[in-house]
C-alpha cells in the first residue's frame, strides 16, 4: 500500500494509528476522542484498537488537557492532544504559552516537551461562533512553540508523523474545511522536512504564499490567472514557526513579486512578519511591495457572511493584479 488516495481526515487518522503502533509512549487525549472518534472522526476507531489507556477521553477542561499532557511528557510520554475547535483552545492558552512553550528553556534543555496540540481551525463550514477562527499568529508569536498546518492529505499524514516525533511542542492546525478533500499519500516517502515550504505550482510572474486552507484557493487562483496569461507560483508554507524564509526568498528572487494569503486577520498576522522579512531580504529584487490578503480586524462573522469574509479567488486575483500593476 505504498500510495493510496484518501481524505485529509483519513490521512490524519492513519498517521495517529501509525504513531500509536510505533511508540507505546504515544497517547491521544481530548474531548470525545474515544467512542465517538472525535467530532470530526479523526480518531475514529483508535480507542477500539488501542484501548482507553492510550486513547483517552478527557474531562471537558482544556487547561486540564494541556496541563496534564505537560505532566505526562515530563514522565516520558508523547501526548497528542485534540482541542475540539479553534475557539476552545483559549482555556488552554495559559498552559500552552506560560508552561508548555518555556519548559525546555527553563530546565536548561534537560527536559523535552514532545506534546502535539491538534486544532481543527479556520472557517468555511457554516458553523456558529468560536468554530471558525484562525489563531495561528497568537501561537507563532510565542518562542518555544512550533506551529504548522498541512494543506493536503500527504502532508497531513507526514507532517503529523514528524510533529509527533519532534521533541518540541508543536501546534498542529488542521484546516477543517479541507478534511474531506482527497489526495495521494505515499506511505513510504516523506515529502519534505516539517518546516520547509514547498512549491505547489511553478510560476514566474508573482508568488502566492499560503498555508492550510488557503493553498487550495491560491492554486485555483493560479489556474485562473494562467488563462489570462499570468504565471503564478504557489508556495505552500506548511510551517508558520519557523517560517522557511529561504524558500520564500528563492521564489521571490525568481518572480520578484509576493502576495501572502491567509484567513487570519491581516493585522499583525503571519503575513506581516513575512512581508517585513522578505522586504529586508529581497529589497532589490522586489518589483512591488509585498501584499497581504486575509481577514479583517473584526470578529469572524456569522456563517451567512463567511463567504464574503473569507479570501476567495477574486480577492487573491485582485491582489495578483495589484502586484503586477506596480
Amino acid at each position, binding site marked *: 500500500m505504498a500510495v493510496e488516495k484518501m481524505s485529509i481526515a483519513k490521512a490524519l487518522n492513519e498517521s495517529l494509528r501509525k504513531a500509536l503502533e510505533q511508540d507505546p509512549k504515544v497517547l491521544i487525549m481530548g*474531548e470525545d476522542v474515544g467512542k465517538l472518534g472525535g467530532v470530526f472522526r479523526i480518531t475514529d476507531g483508535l480507542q477500539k484498537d488501542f484501548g482507553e489507556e492510550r486513547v483517552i477521553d478527557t474531562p*471537558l477542561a482544556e487547561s486540564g488537557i494541556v496541563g496534564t499532557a505537560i505532566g505526562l511528557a515530563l514522565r516520558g510520554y508523547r501526548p497528542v492532544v485534540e482541542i475540539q475547535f479553534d475557539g476552545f483552545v483559549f*482555556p488552554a492558552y495559559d498552559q500552552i504559552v506560560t508552561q508548555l512553550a518555556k519548559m525546555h528553556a527553563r530546565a536548561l534543555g534537560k527536559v523535552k516537551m514532545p506534546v502535539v496540540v491538534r486544532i481543527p481551525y479556520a472557517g468555511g463550514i457554516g458553523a456558529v461562533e468560536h468554530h471558525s477562527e484562525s489563531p495561528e499568529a497568537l501561537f507563532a508569536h510565542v518562542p518555544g512553540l512550533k506551529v504548522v498546518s498541512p494543506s493536503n492529505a500527504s502532508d497531513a499524514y507526514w507532517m503529523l508523523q514528524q510533529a509527533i516525533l519532534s521533541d518540541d511542542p508543536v501546534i498542529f492546525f488542521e484546516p477543517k474545511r479541507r478534511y474531506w478533500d482527497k489526495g495521494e499519500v505515499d506511505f513510504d516517502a516523506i515529502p519534505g522536512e516539517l518546516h520547509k515550504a514547498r512549491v505547489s505550482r511553478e510560476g514566474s510572474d508573482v508568488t502566492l504564499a499560503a498555508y492550510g486552507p488557503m493553498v487550495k484557493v491560491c492554486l485555483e487562483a493560479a489556474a485562473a490567472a494562467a488563462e489570462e496569461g499570468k504565471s503564478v507560483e504557489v508556495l505552500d508554507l506548511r510551517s508558520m514557526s519557523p517560517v522557511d524564509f529561504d524558500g520564500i526568498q528563492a521564489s521571490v528572487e525568481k518572480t520578484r513579486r509576493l502576495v501572502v494569503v491567509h484567513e487570519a486577520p491581516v493585522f499583525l498576522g503571519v503575513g506581516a512578519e513575512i512581508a517585513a522579512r522578505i522586504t529586508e531580504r529581497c529589497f532589490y529584487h522586489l518589483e512591488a511591495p509585498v501584499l497581504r490578503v486575509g481577514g479583517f480586524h473584526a470578529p469572524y462573522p456569522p456563517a451567512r457572511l463567511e463567504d464574503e469574509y473569507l479570501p476567495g479567488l477574486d480577492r487573491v486575483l485582485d491582489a495578483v493584479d495589484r502586484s503586477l500593476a506596480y
Partner: protein
Amino acid sequence: MTVESTAARKPRRSSGTKRAAGAANAAAKPAAATAQTLDAVPQLVQLLTPEGDRVDNAENAEFAPFVADITTEDLRGLYRDMVMTRRFDGEATALQRQGELGLWASLLGQEAAQIGSGRALNDEDYVFPTYREHGVAWCRGVDPTNLLGMFRGVNHGGWDPNLNNFHLYTIVIGSQTLHATGYAMGVAKDGADSAVIAYFGDGASSQGDVAEAFTFSAVYNSPVVFFCQNNQWAISEPTERQMRVPLYQRAQGFGFPGVRVDGNDVLACLAVTRWALDRARRGEGPTLVEAFTYRMGAHTTSDDPTKYRRDEETAAWEAKDPILRLKAHLLATGGADEAFFTELEAESEAMGKRVREAVRAMPDPDTMAIFENVYADGHALVDEERAQFAAYLASFEEGH
C-alpha cells in the same frame, strides 16, 4: 452569614406576585429555610413522581413550602410553557433538517428543569444561559425567533440582553458562570433585591472557570444560583468522565449548599430554585442546584448519539418525560380537561408556524455588518479596512 454588602440591601418584597408570595411563605419560617446546612444535603428532591403523583417526604419538606401557593391554573401555565417550548424546539430541529438553520442544540427532555427554574425568577433577576436554554428564554419573554439568528448564522446573539435580563447564549462552556458571579457581586454592592442564575452543563462543570466561579461567589457571598442541568452526557462523554462524586456535593467543598433536584419534575425545579434564589436575596450567598435530567435527543443536530449511547438508556428516561408527568397529574386531579390540551395543541401549532415563517423570512445580514460594532468607539484600522473592502466590492458593480 451576613456580610457588609448584603446588610445594606433593601428588604425583600413581601407581597406582589404569586411567585414572590410563595417564597414569602417560606421566609416566614426562617428556621426551616436556613436549616439547609452543608451536612444535610438531600439526595433527590422530587414533588411529582413519574406517574404524576404528589410526594411528601423528608427530602422535599424544606422545599415544598416554596410551591405551596401554586394553583391549578399555575400548573396549567407550567404545562403550557413546557409544551410550547418543546414545540418550538421541535420546529427548530425540523428547520435545521430543512437547511434553514446551520445547527440546533435541542433541549428535548430538559423542559421541566428550564421552565421550573425559569418561572422561579423575578423580573429583576438576571440570567446567564449556555446555548441550550430555550425554555428559560421563553420564561423571560424573549421572542423565540430571536434565538434562531445565531443558529441560522445571521448574527452572534440576536437580542439585547438587558431587555429581558437574559444574557446572550455562551458557547465556550463554563465561561458564563464567572460573568454571572461578577454580575451578582455587583448586585450585592448595589444592595439590590435581586438574584442571578447561571446555567451550565455537567460537562462544563469540569472547566476551571466553573471552579473559579464557585470560589469567587463563595468568598464574596454573591447572590448567585448555579443551575447545572446534568443531562448525563457531554456530547459522547458520560458524567463519569467528568466527576467521581455526585455533582451537587461539590458545592460543600466551596462552602455553600448543593441540592440535587429531579430535573424532570417541573414543580420540584420551581421549588428548589425559588428556595435558592430566596437564600441569595436574603444575603446567604450562592447555591448549586443540580437538575438531574436527560438529553433525549442528540447533543446537537451535528451529533450522532448512536455511536456512544444505548437505546435502553433513552427508553428508561422516556418513562420519566417531564411533560407526560405533569399531564398525568393534571388529568388525575381534574386540573385540566381534554379541551385544554386540544386548545394548547392548536396554540403550539400556530407558534410553530409563526417561527417557521419568521425564520424563512429572516434576511441575510448586509456584508458591511462584518465591520459593525467591533468597537464602541471608532477604530482607525477598522475604518480603513471597511473603506477598502467597500471600494473593492463596488469595483464589481462598476463592472471592472
